């Protein structure tokens, strides 16, 4: 016999507590009421209780009516369920082990035998229907809940991102990385040399004799009678030829120094990138080809290039290289002094005197050299109009690169 704990009534009658429980099911076909009478004595041995039952009846039921009723209930309640908690309550109420639908099965005993198959079938249909409804509504409610949660989690995606601190490359480094990549690809390696040089490497070995007007081209800063600050990266040419046999292909980036007052276009300390190629059968055409690769890579494919005769003591023939002005596209403007061209580098075939001084026979070997202002590349490429800004190191400047 099973009791459902609720509902129940409690009465105090004299020395007894009378607890009345409605028994829904005692046996499959028995319904009724059971009353438990508990003595109110404080003495434990006297607390033995007893039961009595009343209104018990055994009935032969036609449950079809009830099935319909439950079906209707199920439909209504499930349709109107508010949330998953409520749905779970409904599941227990109807589909639980002791739920209303299970109870129908448990009342089967009271059904007339000939009706049993029909009642069983209808109950099963009801059960399946309720189960299906439950699952569908559950899925729907879960989905709704998820969506609701996602919606509640919506953020303002226009808010700025977290501050990620990554340092910026210096514009000089941007330039040299590009230049180096290009020349590595053409088989060049990178050479360096001392910034404090002597007369020999800086001048004499480059075919710039003492008291030659060519020395006026570069105002030199001296350390003492022996040493000076290199005025160009060209000494690296000599140092490379000294330690390496042809074929030679190098670029040499580095700092150089001149006795120039600091202003918008001059600086006593600036940077150059030198290039040198020595081999058999190197021609002026080769010089033009390599320079063109460089100019197009750094300044853009659309730029025009022109070579014009110039003079450097260590090259012969010598050529100044101009690219079409990017501001006016070659039309002529104040930036290019109305010429349509901007000077970007100096170059030439290595002077036979330089080859000879480095122990190479000019009838066997030839080569070309070029040199350019690294600062100038940055200024032209990034449209910087004052060299000083490159060395001032304002964070807002560096963060533009």
């Amino acid at each position: 016999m099973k009791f459902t704990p609720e509902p129940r009534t409690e009465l105090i009658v004299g020395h007894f507590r009378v607890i009345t429980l409605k028994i829904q099911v005692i046996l499959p076909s028995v319904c009724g009421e059971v009353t438990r009478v508990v003595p109110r004595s404080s003495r434990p041995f006297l607390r033995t209780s007893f039961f009595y039952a009343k209104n018990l009846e055994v009935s032969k039921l036609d449950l079809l009516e009830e099935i319909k009723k439950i079906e209707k209930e199920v439909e209504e309640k499930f349709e109107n369920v508010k949330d998953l908690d409520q749905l779970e309550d409904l599941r227990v109420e109807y589909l639980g082990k002791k739920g209303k639908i299970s109870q129908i099965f448990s009342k089967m005993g009271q059904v007339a035998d000939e009706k049993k198959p029909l009642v069983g079938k209808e109950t099963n249909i009801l059960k399946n229907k309720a189960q299906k409804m439950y699952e569908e509504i559950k899925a729907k409610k879960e989905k709704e809940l998820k969506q609701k949660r996602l919606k509640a989690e919506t953020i303002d995606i226009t808010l700025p991102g977290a501050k990620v601190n990554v340092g910026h490359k210096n514009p000089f480094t941007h330039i040299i990385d590009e230049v180096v990549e290009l020349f590595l690809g053409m088989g060049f390696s990178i050479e360096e040399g001392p910034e404090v040089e002597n007369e020999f490497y800086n001048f004499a070995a480059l075919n710039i004799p003492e008291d030659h007007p060519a020395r006026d081209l570069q105002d030199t800063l001296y350390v003492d009678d022996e040493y000076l600050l290199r005025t160009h990266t060209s000494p690296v040419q000599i140092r490379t030829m000294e330690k390496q046999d042809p074929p030679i292909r190098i670029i040499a980036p580095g700092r150089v120094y001149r006795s120039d007052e600091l202003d918008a276009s001059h600086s006593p300390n600036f940077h150059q990138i030198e290039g040198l190629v020595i081999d058999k059968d190197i021609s002026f055409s080769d010089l033009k080809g390599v320079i063109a690769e460089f100019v197009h890579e750094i300044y853009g494919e659309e730029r025009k290039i022109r070579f014009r005769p110039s003079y450097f003591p260590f090259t012969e023939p010598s050529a100044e290289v101009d690219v079409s002005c990017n501001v006016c596209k070659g039309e002529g403007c104040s930036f290019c002094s109305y010429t349509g061209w901007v000077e970007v580098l100096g170059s030439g075939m290595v002077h036979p005197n330089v080859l000879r001084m480095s122990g190479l026979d000019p009838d066997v070997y030839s080569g070309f050299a070029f040199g350019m202002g690294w600062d100038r590349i940055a200024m032209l490429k990034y449209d910087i109009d004052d060299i000083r800004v490159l060395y001032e190191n304002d964070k807002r400047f560096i963060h533009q690169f």
Partner: protein
Amino acid sequence: MQVPYNWLKTYIDFPYTPEELSHKLTMAGLEVEEVEYLGEGLEDIVIGEIAEINNHPNADKLKICKVNTGDKTLQMITGAPNIRVDIKVPIAEVGVALPTGMEIEKTKLRGEVSEGMICSKDELGLQEERASGIMILPDDAQPGQKFVKYYGLDEYVFHLDLTPNYARCLGLLGVAREVKAMEKSGNEINFPKIDIEDDDNQEIEKLALIKIEDEDLCPRYAGRVIRDVEIKPSPKWMQRRLKAAGIRPINNIVDITNYVLLEYNQPLHAFDLDKIKDGQVIVRRAEENEKVVTLDDVERTLDQETLVITDPEKIIAVAGVMGAANSEVTQETTDIFLEAAYFAPTSIRKTARKLGLPSEASHRFERGIDIERVIEAGNRAAYLMQEYANGKVASGVIDNYPVPYEENIIEVNLAKVNRLLGIELNKDEIEEMLKRLEIEVVEKKADAIKVKAPSYRNDIEQDADIIEEIARIYGYNNIPSTVPKTNKVGKRSKKQKIEKEIKNTMNATGLDEIITFSLTGSQDYKDLDLSKDHRYKKWVSIKNPLNEAFGLLRTSLIPNLIDSIATNAKRQIDQVRYFEIGRVFTNQGHKKRPLENTKLAAGSMGAAQDIWQLDAPDFYYLKGALEKLFERLAISQEIEFVRGKEDFMHPGRTAEIKFKNEKIGILGELKPKIIDSYDLKERTAVSEIDLTKILSEVEIGDYLFEMLPKYPAVARDLAVLISEDVPVMEVLNLINNTDHEILKDTELFDIYQGEQIPAGQKSIAFKLLFQAPDRTLTDEEVNEVFNQIVKNLKDKYEAEIRKK
């Protein structure tokens, strides 16, 4: 060199407009820096003639003029006091803008119409100061004529930036030769007129004598004498040409020497013959400390390197540089001794530099002039003195030419020409090009030619110079472009790779790269408050610095780093993280090559996160960045941070960085005094590391894979109370050196002092990670090691495990 277009045209006819000529000159190697139009802004000014003047009915000081401008008569009002009938004046008609920007409008002046303006010199921009009246032109001016044409301002001037090998173009004839060579059959050159009527009554030998004592410095010295000259201004056309070329007219004699200098590139000097004792000219070296007062009235002290021109008693000129005041041509001069000489370039260069006297003459002598045309130039000047100073040219020339010009015959291999230029030219084509340059082929061989360059081409020494001329005439831009083949592979050296890795890592840890001057000043180091013999003071000084601020080579990257941070602080940028990689220089003694080391410096100001709550955010930020760097370079195990000391750093917040037990750098917070003097934010920290050892000993990219753990790790927290004096690193070392095999990692995650911690102690908390490669650890195993660690800490430091 300034080349006036029309003047140049008198020597060679050419079909180019000024713009075309400018381009062609540049492409021939004579770089045109600027083309100046002398009449800029005056193009529309015309010449008018005052036909009639009437008083203005309504104004006493104004006149109404009828001005004939050639084809019409206009009415103009003027108040100029010097207005007269029949004079020629510059006129700006209605609609014309003056150089001042003022545009002439048709107006009424007190009721009378004015249809233009009669201009004064200052209104035309021809003089600075205010003119008192209108400009009156000479009578030969024609009404209706363009003012610029009449006044010689219709002239384009080319400002050439000539390289030393174009010295020949420091004379107009040289430029004319270049123009000639621009075309296959260019026009011939019109050489200047020389038509001397020799005064046979006077032979030069009786008037003058030349003696060269130092022929090495003076291979040729020639003289002519011109008598009875009349000193006066030179003709207007000559003055205009000189002015256009940038030379100030003085008098006819001086102007003529300058004029010929500009024609022939031959400096000349005119002496007052009467002031040369006995007419004897001696060319010699100066004596040590010999003195002379030059034309500019400055007394100069000479030495034996200097070549001077003297008479038997005194120095009359510093050869090729400047004349002496004592023999100057003056208003009273009647007889001229005209010098035309060739001086050794090096000597002139040294003298001009020593005396600080660069001049038009010395500029040319030091670049080398045409020794073979010395006489011709002298004659040209003598002729002009005859014509424009009414001089009588004494017959004969004294030509002292002890070291004659030697012709240089150069053999040029034809295959080499083509090989070196990357073109295909035959002998005839080459010969034709050379002919345009007056380079003569003296001998033809099967595979080579022998050529002789003209005497004015002192820049041509060997075949390479001839090849350059061929390339120039052929046109650099007509030579094809090729990329030379190679079997070489471009590579970065190990050092370059490490440097790149360092830069990348520094960027990745949030530091921006800066570049600062390596030329700096001692003030930067004074600001660092360095002790007397601090290593930073072993700098290399510049012998001839531009100024104090660029007087030495840096010994450290720190001063400029601080300076850069300070620059930002001044500009209200309060968070700065910088690094620089660059060379520093250490003096190794006089005449010894300074040491050049590559260093890394890093600095941080205003870091946000104060990880250990010790109010040292910048210090620990930089330390973290450096630790990451050492990790990237795989040398963390060999790096140690120990307590250090540095003059400009906070004594309690300075670390020395050691690599393989050798000090390679420092890291620390700047001391308050420095922070204050640079106006930096508090707690700014800097570091400097000498990369020499790292660059030579680190192997980059040498990674070795270690198996990933297969078994789970066990983490235990360990918090201990320990004396506040014990450095965390010691504790860490003690933990890590515990005898075990299973402690994989120890990480400090908290350090605390304050409430609940006894005074003099601190709480430090570590996360210990235990793991074995071959099994899942048991609690017992972990406990054993853990307890051992606790015991060791207790034994050594009396550290107590902290109860939660």
